[in-house]
C-alpha cells in the first residue's frame, strides 16, 4: 500500500489541453482495466516482449510490418512495394531484395524514397523517429550503386557522425549486410584514434565507404591530394545532423561540404535527423535543392508525470523525495533509462537508487566524466540486456541503440520539448509502439515545466534552436586549411563559402578580413607582411607559405576546445593506479585533501594532485561532499517557458495540477499576484534585515544571470547598495541593504542596459578572456595544448589573457575580439534571450510590494545560501582569501 507510483497522466482519449489526474484510489482499478498499454507496461511483469532487432538498422519483422500496415501506422500511403513479395522493387537490385526477404524484412517507404532521390542525384534530409531504419536508409543508395560495379574506383561515400564511437559502431553494423549479400564493398573508419599507418594507406587506397567525424573531414581537406581523394566522391551521409548543425562543429562541416561540392560537383548529401522542428534550416544546411523525406511519425509517446506521495520540494533538482517511487517504476520495467541533466545529479541519483536497491537489480551509471572503458562496459551490458536501469546524462542522448529499453525516466526538468522527445525515443525502438516515459520533477517549478512539456509532446510541438551566423574563427581555420591543400582564388573561395548556409550572409568585406587575418593576423596599425602565413602567387592565387606552416595548422585543426581536466586515479602504494575518469580542473581545485565526493558511483576521498592526475582512495560509508559540476546544464527553452507562463496565468488549468502545486499558486494569488502570461511579476519585500527584489521572467538561468549582473550595476548607481543575486531557471533574486520598492521598475528593466552597462561589465569580466582564448585557438592564432603533451617546468608559455589585454587596448575592433564577443553573447550570456525578455516586458511589469517573502519567491530564496554567483567579486576574492590566511596565521 502506498508504495506504488502515483502517476499523473493524460487520458488516452482526452482532447489536447485536458489533463486528467488519476486519484490514488482510481488508479489501481485503472491499472487493472487494460485500457492503456503504456500504463500497464509501467507495471511490467507479465508483458510479452517480442524479440527485437537491435542496432540502428532496426527493421521491422515481416509479422510486425503486416500488423503495422493493418494498423495504418506507416505513413498514410499504400504499402510500399515489398521485396521478397511478388512485385520487384525497381530501385532495389535482386541481391538486396533476396537479402531483405531472407531476413523476413521489407523495405520501408522512406528507404525507397531515399533510393529514388539518390538515383536522381538529389540531396535529401530524412527525418525519422528512432527505430525507423534511418541509418540503413542513408547507406542503401550507396550500397546499391557500389554493388553495380562502381566499387574500387576511389572513395564513393563519406559518412560523418558527431560521435567518434558512433562512426565505429555503424561501420561494424554495416559489415553485416555487406558480407551477407556478398558485396565487394570496403568499409573503413577514420577518427582521431586511427593509426597513422592506416591513414596513410587510406590515402593511397581509399575504401569505398569511409566513416568519420567533422574534424577529420576538415583535416583531410587540408591535404594536397584532397582533390584526387574526393574527386570521385558521390555521397555524403551526415548522421544526427540535428545535434550539430547549429554549432561551431556544424559550421566547420558546412564549410567542408561546400569544399567537397567544389571538388565533386555531382555530390549528393543525405542528412539523417531525429524528429525536430527545424526541417527548413536543416534543408538549408544540406544546401542546393535538398528534398525532405519524412518517415511515419510513429506512435505518440505515452508520457506520465510522477506525482509523488511525498511533499514536492521547493528547490533542488535531485527528486530525492520521489526516488523510492522511481525505484518501483524501474522494478516494474524491463529496462529503464534514467536521464538526469547533470553529471553530479547522475551520481546522486545512482547513489540513492543503489541505496533503495533491495532486490539487487543490476543498475549502471553512464556519464561523460567516466572512463571510456567503463562506459563501453555499461553499453555492452545494456546491449546484452543484462541491466535493468542505466542512470545517464546527455551521453546517451545520441548514438547507437544499445538495448531493449522500455521505459525512459526523466529526473528533473526536461528543459525543452525536442530534447525530451529525443530522450523518450530511446525507449522502444519500434516505431509502431509508443515509447513510454515517466517525468519526475525535482521541485515545484519543475512540476509546472513537466506539465508544459507533457502537453507539448502530446501535441507533437517541438522547440527549435535559432541558428547562429557562421563563426569567423571557424572560417579562418577553414581558409587556412584550404590554402594548405592548394592555391586558391579569393573570389572563388568566397562564392564557395557563402554557399554554406551558416555563411550565406557573410559580406565580402568580412571574408576579406578573415582571409587577411589568416594570412597576417590582420592587424590594422602594423603589418606582419614579411611573416605572412598565406602568400600570394604571381598569378594572384593564395597558398600556404611552406610545409612547416601547413603542418602546424594540421596539428591545430578542429573546433573542440577541451576544458583543462584532471584524471581521477585510485592511489596505490608506489605509483599509478586505475583510471576512473576525468573531471574539470576547477572542481579539483575546489577540493582539499581529505574531502570526499561522489564519483563513478562510489564515495572517494581526495588525496592530492600530481601533474594532471588527481589521486583518490575509496571511502565507503562516508558522507560525500557533493560535487557540483556545471557540466551538462541546459537552459529552459523559450518555447516551454511560454507554456509555463500560460499555465500559471490560467487558474482554470490549475485543476490539472497536483494539489500541492494548486495550493502553492492559490496562496500566491492571495498574498501577492499571479502575473498574466505577457507580464513579468516583480516582488519586493524585506527579509532578515535585507531587502529583496525577485522577478520571474522564466527565461533560463543564463539569461537571468546576465540580467542579475546588469541589474546590480544599475542598483549600485541607484544607491540601494546591492549585495548579491541568485538566478534560477525561472526567477532572479537580488538583495540589497536598502529598500528597492520605491524604484521605477520600468526604468530599472529598460532595454538600454544592454548598451554601456553590458560593455563596461564585460570589459572587466574573465568571461571574455575565456571565450577569446577559444576563438584564438580555433582561428589558429595560438596553438592548442595537446593532451599528453607534458610541459617541463621551465618552459614558459604565453597566455591568451595577455594577448587579449594587448589587443583590446590597441585594436578593440579586431576580428577575433568580435568573434569572441559573438561567442560569449550566445554561449555564456544568452543575450538574444535577454533582449527578447526586456522587449517583451516593456510596459508590462507588475510590481507587488510585499511585507514578506511570497510563495513563488520561496524556491529562489532557498537557493541563495546554496549558490551565490561569482559576479564582479573576483578581485575581492583575492583579498578575502589572503586576509583569511593572515587571520588564520594570526590565530584569530
Amino acid at each position, binding site marked *: 500500500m502506498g508504495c506504488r507510483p502515483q502517476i499523473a497522466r493524460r487520458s488516452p482519449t482526452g482532447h489536447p489541453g485536458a489533463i486528467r489526474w488519476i486519484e490514488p484510489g482510481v488508479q489501481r482499478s485503472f491499472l487493472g482495466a487494460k485500457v492503456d498499454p503504456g500504463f500497464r507496461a509501467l507495471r511490467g511483469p507479465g508483458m510479452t516482449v517480442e524479440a527485437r532487432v537491435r542496432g540502428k538498422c532496426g527493421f521491422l519483422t515481416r509479422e510486425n510490418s503486416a500488423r503495422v500496415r493493418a494498423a495504418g501506422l506507416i505513413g498514410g500511403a499504400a504499402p510500399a512495394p515489398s521485396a521478397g513479395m511478388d512485385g520487384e522493387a525497381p530501385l532495389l537490385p535482386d541481391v538486396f531484395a533476396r537479402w531483405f526477404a531472407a531476413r523476413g524484412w521489407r523495405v520501408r517507404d522512406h528507404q525507397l524514397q531515399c533510393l529514388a532521390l539518390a538515383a536522381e542525384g538529389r540531396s535529401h534530409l530524412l527525418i525519422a523517429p528512432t527505430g525507423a531504419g534511418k541509418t540503413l536508409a542513408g547507406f542503401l543508395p550507396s550500397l546499391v550503386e557500389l554493388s553495380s560495379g562502381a566499387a574500387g574506383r576511389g572513395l564513393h561515400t563519406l559518412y560523418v557522425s558527431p560521435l567518434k564511437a558512433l562512426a565505429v559502431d555503424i561501420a561494424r553494423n554495416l559489415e553485416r549486410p555487406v558480407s551477407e549479400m556478398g558485396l565487394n564493398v570496403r568499409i573503413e573508419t577514420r577518427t582521431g584514434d586511427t593509426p597513422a599507418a592506416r591513414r596513410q594507406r587510406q590515402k593511397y587506397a581509399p575504401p569505398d565507404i569511409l566513416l568519420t567525424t567533422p574534424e577529420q573531414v576538415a583535416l583531410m581537406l587540408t591535404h594536397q591530394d584532397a582533390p584526387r581523394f574526393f574527386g570521385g566522391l558521390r555521397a555524403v551521409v551526415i548522421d544526427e545532423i540535428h545535434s550539430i548543425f547549429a554549432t561551431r562543429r556544424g559550421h566547420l562541416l558546412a564549410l567542408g561540404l561546400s569544399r567537397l561540392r567544389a571538388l565533386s560537383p555531382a555530390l549528393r548529401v543525405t542528412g539523417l535527423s531525429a524528429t525536430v522542428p527545424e526541417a527548413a534550416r536543416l534543408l538549408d544546411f544540406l544546401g542546393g535543392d535538398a528534398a525532405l523525406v519524412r518517415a511515419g511519425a510513429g506512435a505518440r509517446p505515452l508520457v506520465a508525470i510522477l506525482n509523488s506521495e511525498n511533499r514536492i520540494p521547493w528547490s533542488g533538482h535531485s527528486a530525492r523525495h520521489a526516488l523510492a517511487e522511481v525505484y518501483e517504476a524501474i522494478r516494474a520495467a524491463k529496462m529503464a533509462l534514467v536521464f538526469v541533466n547533470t553529471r553530479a545529479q547522475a551520481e546522486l541519483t545512482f547513489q540513492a537508487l543503489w541505496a533503495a536497491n533491495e532486490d539487487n537489480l543490476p543498475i549502471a551509471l553512464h556519464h561523460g566524466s567516466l572512463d571510456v572503458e567503463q562506459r563501453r562496459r555499461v553499453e555492452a551490458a545494456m546491449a546484452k540486456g543484462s541491466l535493468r536501469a542505466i542512470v545517464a546524462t546527455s551521453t546517451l542522448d545520441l548514438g547507437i541503440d544499445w538495448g531493449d529499453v522500455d521505459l525512459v525516466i526523466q529526473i528533473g526538468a526536461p528543459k525543452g520539448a525536442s530534447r525530451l522527445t529525443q530522450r523518450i525515443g530511446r525507449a522502444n525502438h519500434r516505431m509502431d509502439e509508443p515509447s513510454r516515459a515517466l517525468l519526475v520533477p525535482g521541485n515545484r517549478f519543475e512540476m509546472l515545466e513537466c506539465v508544459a512539456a507533457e502537453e507539448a509532446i502530446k501535441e507533437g510541438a517541438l522547440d527549435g534552436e535559432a541558428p547562429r551566423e557562421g563563426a569567423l574563427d571557424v572560417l579562418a581555420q577553414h581558409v587556412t586549411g584550404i590554402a594548405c591543400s592548394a592555391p586558391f582564388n579569393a573570389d572563388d573561395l568566397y562564392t564557395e563559402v557563402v554557399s554554406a548556409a551558416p555563411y550565406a550572409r557573410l559580406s565580402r568585406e568580412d571574408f576579406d578580413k578573415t582571409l587577411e587575418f589568416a594570412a597576417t593576423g590582420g592587424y590594422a596599425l602594423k603589418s606582419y607582411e614579411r*611573416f605572412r602565413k598565406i602568400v600570394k602567387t604571381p598569378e594572384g592565387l593564395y597558398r600556404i607559405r611552406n610545409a612547416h606552416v601547413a603542418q602546424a595548422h594540421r596539428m591545430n585543426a578542429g573546433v573542440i576546445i577541451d576544458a583543462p581536466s584532471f584524471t581521477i586515479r585510485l592511489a596505490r602504494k608506489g605509483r599509478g593506479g586505475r583510471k576512473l575518469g576525468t573531471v574539470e580542473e576547477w572542481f579539483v581545485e575546489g577540493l582539499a585533501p581529505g574531502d570526499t565526493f561522489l564519483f563513478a558511483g562510489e564515495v572517494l576521498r581526495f588525496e592530492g594532485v600530481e601533474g594532471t592526475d588527481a589521486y583518490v582512495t575509496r571511502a565507503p560509508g562516508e558522507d560525500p561532499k557533493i560535487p557540483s559540476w556545471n557540466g551538462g546544464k541546459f537552459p529552459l527553452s523559450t518555447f516551454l517557458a511560454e507554456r509555463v507562463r500560460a499555465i500559471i496565468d490560467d487558474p482554470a488549468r490549475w485543476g490539472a495540477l497536483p494539489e500541492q502545486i494548486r495550493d502553492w499558486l492559490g496562496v500566491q494569488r492571495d498574498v501577492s499576484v499571479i502575473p498574466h502570461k505577457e507580464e513579468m511579476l516583480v516582488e519586493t519585500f524585506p527579509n532578515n534585515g535585507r531587502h529583496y527584489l525577485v522577478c520571474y521572467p522564466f527565461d533560463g538561468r543564463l539569461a537571468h544571470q546576465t540580467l542579475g549582473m546588469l541589474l546590480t550595476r544599475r542598483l549600485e548607481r541607484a544607491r540601494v547598495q546591492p549585495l548579491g543575486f541568485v538566478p534560477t531557471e525561472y526567477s532572479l533574486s537580488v538583495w540589497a541593504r536598502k529598500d528597492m520598492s520605491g524604484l521605477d521598475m520600468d526604468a530599472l528593466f529598460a532595454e538600454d542596459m544592454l548598451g554601456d552597462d553590458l560593455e563596461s561589465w564585460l570589459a572587466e569580466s574573465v568571461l571574455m578572456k575565456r571565450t577569446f582564448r577559444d576563438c584564438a585557438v580555433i582561428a589558429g592564432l595560438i596553438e592548442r595544448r595537446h593532451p599528453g603533451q607534458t610541459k617541463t617546468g621551465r618552459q614558459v608559455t604565453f597566455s591568451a589573457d*595577455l594577448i587579449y589585454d594587448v589587443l583590446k587596448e590597441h585594436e578593440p575592433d579586431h576580428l577575433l575580439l568580435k568573434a569572441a564577443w559573438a561567442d560569449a553573447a550566445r554561449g555564456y550570456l544568452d543575450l538574444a534571450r535577454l533582449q527578447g525578455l526586456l522587449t517583451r516586458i516593456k510596459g508590462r511589469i507588475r510590481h507587488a510590494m510585499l511585507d514578506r517573502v511570497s510563495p513563488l519567491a520561496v524556491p529562489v530564496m532557498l537557493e541563495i545560501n546554496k549558490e551565490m554567483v*561569482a559576479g564582479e567579486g573576483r578581485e575581492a576574492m583575492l583579498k578575502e582569501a589572503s586576509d583569511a590566511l593572515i587571520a*588564520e596565521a594570526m590565530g584569530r
Partner: protein
Amino acid sequence: MSERPFILVNGERVTLLTAGALLLGDGETLVVSDLHFEKGSHFAAKGVLLPPYDTRTTLRRIATLMKNLKPRRVISLGDAFHDGAAEARMDEEDANLLSALTGAADWLWILGNHDPEPPARFAGAVETAARIGGLLFRHEPAVPAEEGEVAGHLHPVARVRTERGAMRRRCFVTDGARLVMPAFGAYAGGLNVLDEAFAPLFAEPVAHVLGGDGVYPFWGRALVPDPGFKAAPPHGRAAASGRAG
C-alpha cells in the same frame, strides 16, 4: 609623499606595486624586470602572429608609473629585449617612446640572458649587477643564496585557491632575505612559484600576488600548482588539511 605600504627585504624597505614594479624605500628608484620588448614580433617570425603591440603596451605601462611616481632612477633588471634583433625590429614610434623614457630618468640596464649586449640606441648605464644599500640587483638569482638579492628571470606567478575557483597571477616572491620580481613585459609568461626552479632559492617563500587593486600575500598550502606541472616538494603544504576558516 604619503606613507606607502612596504615590506622588508634584507632590512631594506621596498614597496611592491600592483603593476609588478618595485619602488625602493627612498621613493626615487623604480625597478622593472623582464620587459621582453618585441617578443610578439619574435613569435611572428616563427609563424605565430601575435598582436604586434606588446612593446607599446609595456612602454605605456612604464610611462604611467614614471609619470605618477617621478623616480630619479629606473632599473631594468635584465631581459628588457626579447632577443638580439629585438632592438632592430622595434618600430619608430616605440623607439621614440623608449628614448623619451630613458631621457626622463637615469636608466640602469642590468644585462640578462636574453639581452647579454647593452642596447645600441638607448641611453643609460649598463651593468651585470648593481648594489644599492643592502640590496644587490642582478638578473638571475644566484644559488646559494646571497642576502639582499633582487632578481628577475624566473617570471613567478602564483596560483591561488579562492572560494570562486583558482586565480593565476603574477607575483613577487620573497622570504625576507631575497626577492624575485614578476616579469613586467606585456607578453612575458609565468612560472608557478611551486616549480622546482624556486626550490633552491627559498625555504619558506611568500608570494605577493598582483591583484587589480592591491598586492596580496599568500604562502603554504594557499599556493597550488598548475595542472600539468610537477610541483616541487611541498613547503609544508600537505601538513595542514583543514580549510581557512
